C-alpha cells in the first residue's frame, strides 16, 4: 500500500461521505461506514424477539412515517380496531373517501367501550393501515390521509 493508494481511498471517503473504511486483504475483510450512520449497533437488540401482531404492525407503522406526503391518524388508545360501529353497519369510510376534520372514521374498542376515532385533518383516505378486528397499540397508524 503506498501513499497514492491511501490518498485515493481518502478522496473516496469524502466523495462517498464515509466515516470509516477498513480493509484486510487475505482474510478479505471490508468495513465501510457512513458518516450519517448510527454509531455502533448495540447488540442486545439482536437478541430479543418480539412476535406480536401489535409489534409488527408498529414497525410497519414506523416505515409509513417515512411517507411524509401523507398525514397519519394514529390510535390514541390501546384496543381493537373496527371499521364500522357494529357488524351490521357499514364501515365509516372507504378508501378514497374525502373526510373532514372531526369526522368519525373508525372505532377502537377498549374495556368493552367503543371509542370513536375522528380524523384530525381534512383530506382523502389513501390507506387503511390496520385490518378490521386487529389489535392496535398506542400511537399505531390507523389511516393515511392525503391532506386536502
Amino acid at each position, binding site marked *: 500500500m503506498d501513499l497514492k493508494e491511501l490518498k485515493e481511498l481518502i478522496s473516496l471517503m469524502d466523495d462517498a461521505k464515509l466515516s470509516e473504511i477498513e480493509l484486510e486483504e487475505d482474510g478479505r475483510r471490508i468495513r465501510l461506514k457512513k458518516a450519517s450512520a448510527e454509531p455502533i449497533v*448495540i447488540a442486545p437488540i439482536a437478541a430479543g424477539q418480539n412476535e406480536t401482531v401489535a409489534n409488527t404492525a408498529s414497525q410497519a407503522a414506523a416505515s409509513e412515517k417515512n411517507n411524509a406526503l401523507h398525514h397519519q391518524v394514529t390510535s390514541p388508545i390501546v384496543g381493537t380496531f373496527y371499521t364500522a360501529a357494529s357488524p351490521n353497519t357499514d364501515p365509516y369510510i372507504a378508501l378514497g373517501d374525502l373526510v373532514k376534520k372531526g369526522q368519525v372514521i373508525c372505532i377502537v374498542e377498549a374495556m368493552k367501550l367503543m371509542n370513536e376515532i375522528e380524523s384530525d385533518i381534512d383530506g382523502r383516505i389513501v390507506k387503511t393501515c390496520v385490518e378490521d378486528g386487529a389489535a392496535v397499540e398506542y*400511537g399505531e397508524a390507523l389511516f393515511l390521509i392525503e391532506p386536502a
Partner: protein
Amino acid sequence: MFRKILIANRGEIAFRIIRACRELGVKTVAIHSEADADSLHVRFADESVCIGPADPAQSYRNIPNILSAAEITGAEAVHPGYGFLAENAHFADVCESAGIKFIGPLPECISMMGDKAKARDIMAKNGVPIIPGSEGILSGENEGFELARKIGYPVIIKAVAGGGGRGMRVVHEETGFSAAFHAAQSEAGSAFGNDGVYLEKFFIEPRHIEIQILADDKGKMIYFPERDCSIQRRHQKLVEESPSPVVDDRLRRELGKAATAAVTASRYVNAGTVEFLLDRDHNFYFIEMNTRIQVEHPISECVTGIDLVKEQIKIASGKPLSIKQSQVKLNGHSFECRVNAESPVTFRPCPGKITAFHVPGGPGIRVDSASYMGSVIPPHYDSLVAKLIVHDQTRDEAIAKMKGALSEFVIEGIETTLPLHKRIFEDPSFIKGRFSTTFLDHFLENSKT
C-alpha cells in the same frame, strides 16, 4: 399456572419478572411507553404493546390502556412490579373485574395498608408494637404533657397538616415541653392554617428494619430474615443488607412473630414487607406495610435461596406455598447497592445515554439491570441504572466482595452514585455495622468539609 402474564412496569423489575416467567414457562407481555421502545424488557418479552407517550401518567399509570393491552394479548394475570400501579387498590380492583389476576394482595388489603392511620390501628389491635403517641390531635398542653411523661422522653410534636419540618419540635426533657408545644402549635397555625398537633415517641438514631413475608391464599405464610435498610437519604434507600448487623436470632424471631401477626391481621396474600423502626435498645415499632415486591428483594433471595418473584407468581396462580418456615434458613450475608443515574454529590438526576457499560462478575455477584451500552436512561422515570448485589459467607467477606465489584463496575456517559457507594464501603462506622437512618446525612455532611 398462568400461560401468559402482562408486566405492568419497566426497567430492571420488568426484566426481573420476565426472567422469572421464562423459568416458569410462562409467556410474557411487556408494555412500554414511546420512550422505552428500545428497552430490554421489551426485547426479552414474548410480546409487547406500546401503551402511551413517555409521561408515566399517560403510559405506565394508564389503567385503561394497560388493561386493553392485557385483553388484546390474552394475558391472564398482571404483575405490577414496584412503583407505578403496584399499590393502587383501584387498579387491582379493575384487574379482578376484568377477569385478570392481579399478582399481589386483594384490593381491600392494599387500601387498608395505604391508609397509614388505619394500618397503625389494626396493628395495635393485633399486638404488633406501634410507635407510642397520641391518638390523633392533642386537646391541649396538659394532655400532651401527661402523655409525654407516660411514653418517656424524647418525644416529637408534629403538625397534623404538616410536612417539611415546620410545626415540628423534638422535646428531650419535661422542662422544655410547654415552650415546644406552643411553638409547634403557633408555627403549624401560621404555616398550614391548622394548629392541630400530635405527639409521638422520638427515636435517636433508629434503624430501618424490615421483614419480607410470603403468604398464600390458604393461610400459610413464611417470614424471611430481616433486611437493614438504614442507609437512606430522604427515605430513598441506597444500600441494603441482610441480615442486620445488630439483630440476633432472638430478635429475629420476635420480628418474625410481629410480621406474622401483621399478615394475619390484614389477611395478607402474596409477597409483602413489614417495616419497623428499631431503637437503640432494640425495641421495634411498626411503621408501615408495603404491599408489593421491593427493590431490595434480591438480598433476601441471596441469603435464603428462595426466588421471591417466582413465588409471587405461584401464589397468585393459586398454588399453595411449598416452603415451610423451617426451610427458610439464613445463609451468609448479602448487600445491595442501588446504582442510580444521579450526581453522587448533589443527587441531581442525570439521565442520558450510557456510552460504556461493563458489569462485575465472578462468584457471589449478581447484577439486576435493564441497562446496556447504548441504552438511554430517560428523564421521565426513576433513576435506577442497576442493582449490584453480593453474597458471601460473612459480613466482612461480603464487604470485601462489594468493594471489589464496585471497582469493576464501569458506567460511562452518565453520572452515577457508584463513587458514593465506594466511599460508603470504605467508611469505618459502616464497616463496623454502626449506623442508623441518620448515617447518610452525617456522612454527606462530613464529606463536604
